[in-house]
């Protein structure tokens, strides 16, 4: 019965991620979904598969609870590092909350006291919702731009986070446009107060700061344009065949559509395929429930590549197991009879 389900939509939208491998223009790939559905495993697997067909691949985790290190059994940090056993696959973990502190601390380091205007700017910066992630995002992108990776995979934080994260470019762009406009209007006035050098009390320079902000804005708008280009960016949704996960996935797909971000792949993870005549009561009951939601997914997402991944009896950790698992993203899993 499960084999019948697997080969059900073999017509146009094949149940694999082959389309992502084939789409050579892709530059940014996001992998997202509810917590615990296997985003990290999926993104690692996808990265492994992509590494086979691309020149260089970078895997970035933006999830504060970093799992890349766990998955590859290797420590990753803020700098991109080659994954053991690969020549063209690197990984890095960034902390969305850490980098804004670094950034702001770096700005004010000429003066010891972060008083006056500096403190105000910091408060202001923290007051904008989500600016921390956006800033770290911008930082990462600046780094990534200078390194020349052919494709970059983001292992994002659980759903709500992801969406906010993707929204920032537009939010920040608006906010920064306002700030820039204000500064160009009142800049002369402020400079009158501050003297010809435009020195702020803590040793910063007003014009310099505004230039920095303007630069940030430009970077972000560029990124924004790239994310909205379906030739460059796609989003892979990972879910499990359960109601809440499905619900979140639907919500996410709608929101992504609202932001104009392309998505055409869904990975349904942790599916149970009990052997014929298995008398495991839980497995059979769960299989039945998953089947129900799988049918719903098939009906609802008929224009998506829906990949079905089995729940394994072992943890998917380490290079070999990940490679084995990743193979199933491309060659559909056939359950043992």
């Amino acid at each position: 019965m499960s084999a019948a389900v697997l080969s059900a939509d073999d017509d146009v939208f094949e149940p694999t991620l082959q389309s992502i491998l084939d789409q050579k223009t892709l530059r940014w790939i996001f992998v997202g979904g509810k917590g615990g559905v296997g985003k990290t495993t999926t993104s690692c697997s996808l990265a492994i598969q992509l590494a086979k067909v691309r020149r260089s691949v970078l895997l970035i985790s933006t999830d504060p609870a970093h799992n890349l290190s766990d998955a590859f059994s290797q420590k990753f940090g803020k700098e991109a590092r080659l994954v053991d056993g690969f020549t063209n696959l690197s990984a890095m973990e960034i902390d969305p909350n850490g980098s804004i502190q670094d950034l702001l601390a770096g700005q004010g380091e000429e003066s010891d006291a972060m008083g006056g205007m500096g403190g105000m700017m910091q408060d202001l910066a923290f007051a904008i919702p989500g600016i921390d992630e956006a800033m770290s995002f911008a930082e990462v992108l600046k780094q990534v731009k200078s390194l020349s990776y052919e494709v970059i995979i983001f292992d994002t934080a659980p759903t709500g986070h992801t969406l906010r994260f993707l929204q920032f470019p537009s939010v920040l762009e608006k906010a920064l446009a306002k700030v820039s406009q204000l500064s160009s209007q009142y800049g002369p006035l402020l400079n009158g107060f501050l003297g010809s050098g435009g020195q702020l009390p803590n040793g910063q320079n007003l014009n310099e700061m505004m230039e920095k902000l303007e630069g940030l804005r430009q970077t972000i708008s560029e990124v924004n344009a790239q994310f909205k280009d379906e030739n460059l960016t796609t989003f892979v949704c990972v879910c499990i065949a359960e109601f809440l996960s499905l619900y979140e996935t639907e919500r996410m797909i709608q929101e992504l559509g609202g932001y104009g971000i392309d998505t055409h792949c869904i990975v349904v993870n942790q599916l149970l395929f009990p052997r014929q005549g298995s008398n495991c009561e839980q497995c059979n009951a769960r299989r039945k429930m998953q089947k129900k939601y799988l049918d719903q997914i098939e009906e609802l997402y008929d224009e998506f590549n829906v990949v079905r991944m089995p729940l394994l009896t072992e943890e998917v950790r380490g290079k070999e197991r990940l490679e084995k698992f990743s193979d199933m993203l491309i060659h559909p899993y056939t359950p043992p009879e």
Partner: protein
Amino acid sequence: MPSLLLVVLLVEVAVHFVNTIGAATINNILWNIYLALPTEAAKQAAEKNKLQKDYLAIRRDLNATSSQDQFAKWAKLRRQHDKQLEQLEKLKASHDASKAKFDRTAGIIRWSATSGVKFVLPWIYGTEPMFWLPSGWFPYYVEWILSFPRAPLGSISIVSWQTACAGAVLLFSDAIRQVILSALEAKSARKQPVTATPKKEPTPVSTAEKSEKKS
């Protein structure tokens, strides 16, 4: 100048009419009339109503569908629901905007046709006598007040005429309201007990007539 006399009276009546009914009510009535005409706004309003009906139907369907048992159907309905809600909100906003514009225009026209005329007329015809008083009937100070501010002595100025008209209109309207109220009262009283006297209307009418005569 009998026509001017009449105009001033009519203006007073109009002002009083607007004040009693209320500007908002008049605007609403005008707006509904405007919507009944084959205009762009009317088309939009019809569209909005249709969409609202569709939206409510979908919402009913959505509420009747179990999201757990028929997720695909539910999600599809949900997508439609969200899309229509967005459209509806957009339409509503544009509808509200056109209504606000209409209200503003109607308000300006209404004000200039009533209060505006009321202020402008005395300014233009301030020096013209409305009609002359028979000479010698009234003492000097009465004549002076009646011709206030700029009309020749011994005549009725337009301001005095306006004041008189306003007073008369007020009295008339009070009288009419009283008649209507008591008529309604009598009707409801007749409905309740059989013992109520059947002829109750004439009494208030006669008092109203008295007050009319007074004015």
